[in-house]
């Protein structure tokens, strides 16, 4: 049905087919939800695009199932269970506790949502999210997520390649970097009333990093619309970098010529660099990055952290000749 590119880190389909929970969710959705209307079985629904009717151009669901096809990117390890993915989050705009985002992010209004596009690009201005992300052409990608705090997850994201979105704004040759800005609403984001970081949260990528095949804009996970605590309605996913680079709830994209400021780098420059590539050889000044705690499985499970989080084949060439300890 699908022709998969074979990557070394790819595994057989049944390895990555999610465990009971994922199937159960799918079944419940398929039998009770929108898919039931089309009269398809849960099995067919799993193959995505055949299942649900594609969203009409310029519209997006704000809850529930997202029509998508399965993508080429998978990993061998089992998926992190849905409750862990959506219950253990760093999203300091809603509080510094890991369960704060799940508790408080519901206050965020994600519809309507628009994104300001600024800087060195032919198409700039304010765009509705539906016009930035084509909800009729979503794919699922299973990526590792490695947090700088030395824990990791495996998450099935739904979204679109960042490259295609950025290309649609026709950046000029002066656009050497791209900066992203998170929403800042002191009423809805209770964590921003306290200066944990200099709000709003900002992140950035070098243009070639942003155009890399792995860079992804997610609007969903586990087949459904992104829960608010995971960065609804649209977030970045750059799986070869520490999790904080994957900025959430994006309201602004700026094409710039100089390396942009990033929040954690501004907060503690010796701890968090601009690149923030996952690198087991460069210890965080306060803890080792050699291995990571695997969230959601056996409580004692650890795995060795891999260079670029296991994505060397796709990304290492971008850093050829660079000292990655110096440029951490």
């Amino acid at each position, binding site marked *: 049905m699908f022709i998969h590119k074979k990557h070394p880190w790819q595994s057989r389909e049944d390895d990555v087919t999610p465990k009971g929970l994922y199937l159960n969710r799918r079944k419940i959705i398929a039998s009770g939800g929108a898919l039931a209307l089309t009269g398809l079985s849960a099995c067919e629904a799993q193959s995505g695009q055949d299942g649900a009717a594609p969203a009409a151009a310029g519209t997006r669901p704000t809850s529930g199932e997202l029509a998508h096809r399965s993508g080429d990117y998978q990993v061998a390890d089992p998926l992190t269970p849905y409750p*862990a993915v959506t*219950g*253990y989050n760093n999203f300091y705009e809603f509080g510094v506790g890991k369960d704060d985002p799940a508790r408080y992010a519901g206050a965020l209004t994600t519809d309507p949502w628009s994104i300001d596009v600024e800087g060195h690009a032919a198409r700039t201005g304010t765009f509705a999210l539906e016009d930035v992300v084509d909800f009729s052409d979503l794919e699922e990608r299973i990526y590792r997520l490695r947090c700088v*705090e030395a824990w990791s997850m495996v998450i099935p994201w739904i979204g679109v390649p960042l490259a295609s979105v950025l290309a649609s704004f026709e950046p000029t040759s002066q656009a050497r970097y791209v900066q992203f800005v998170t929403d800042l609403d002191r009423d809805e984001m209770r964590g921003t009333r*306290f200066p*944990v*970081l200099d709000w709003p949260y900002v992140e950035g990528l070098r243009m070639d990093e942003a155009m890399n095949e792995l860079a992804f804009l997610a609007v969903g996970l586990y087949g459904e619309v992104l829960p608010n605590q995971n960065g609804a309605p649209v977030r970045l996913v750059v799986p070869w970098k520490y999790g904080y680079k994957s900025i959430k709830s994006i309201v602004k994209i700026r094409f710039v010529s100089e390396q942009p400021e990033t929040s954690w780098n501004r907060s503690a420059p010796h701890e968090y660099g601009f690149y923030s590539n996952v690198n087991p050889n460069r210890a965080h000044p*306060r803890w080792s990055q050699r291995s990571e705690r695997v969230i959601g499985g056996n409580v004692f499970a650890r795995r060795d952290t891999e260079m670029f989080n296991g994505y060397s084949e796709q990304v290492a060439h971008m850093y050829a000749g660079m000292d990655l300890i110096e440029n951490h």
Partner: protein
Amino acid sequence: MARNPLLRTFSRHLLKPLTFWLLALPGIWLAWQWAMLLNGQPHGLGFNPIETTHRFLGDTAIRILLISLAVTPIRDLTKWGPIMMVRRRIGLAAFWYALLHILAYLGLDLFIEAGTASGAMAALWRDVTDRIYITLGMSAFILLIPMAITSFNGMQRLLGSRRWQGLHRLVYPLAILAVLHHGFMVKGFQLAPWIHGGILAALLVYRLVGMKARKRPQPSASKS
């Protein structure tokens, strides 16, 4: 106050056991949650139980330490003398939670990562020398050890009360080290270490003011 018979009965018969069980409660809760977890039952340790355990034991140790520092001021302010009977067990509880905190770090992090006990010890030493917040935390714990060892009545007699008291003033620098350990550990600008630090600062200021007040009358007394 001692004339209140209810309070006197409470002080004489209930204060010590009640304090013991209150101090043991966090440990009992933690052990219970781990038992649930290991039996595959729903538990309150979240999705990263090891991290939760580290934070919980560390927070508990610091908070009990702060409570132990508050005992004397509470006695001064309320004139309720019997509270001094539980000061030692409060201080010792801080030591036990700090010890558990270190053992949990050693066992659940360093040992699992290294695979051998010697590897875990080597990693601990590396952390102590390389990582400022662990240097601070370990220094605080090392200062707690002589206080715990000399907490018995016999040791107090052996040392003499002046020397014993001098030794136990270590609690002030070690409390500062413990709060700094917490502050240097968290990411970004977070509130919790500042709250602990604020309470500690208030307790230290109280002691300093008290010491000055006690010293001041002396010169005038020698003049007269």
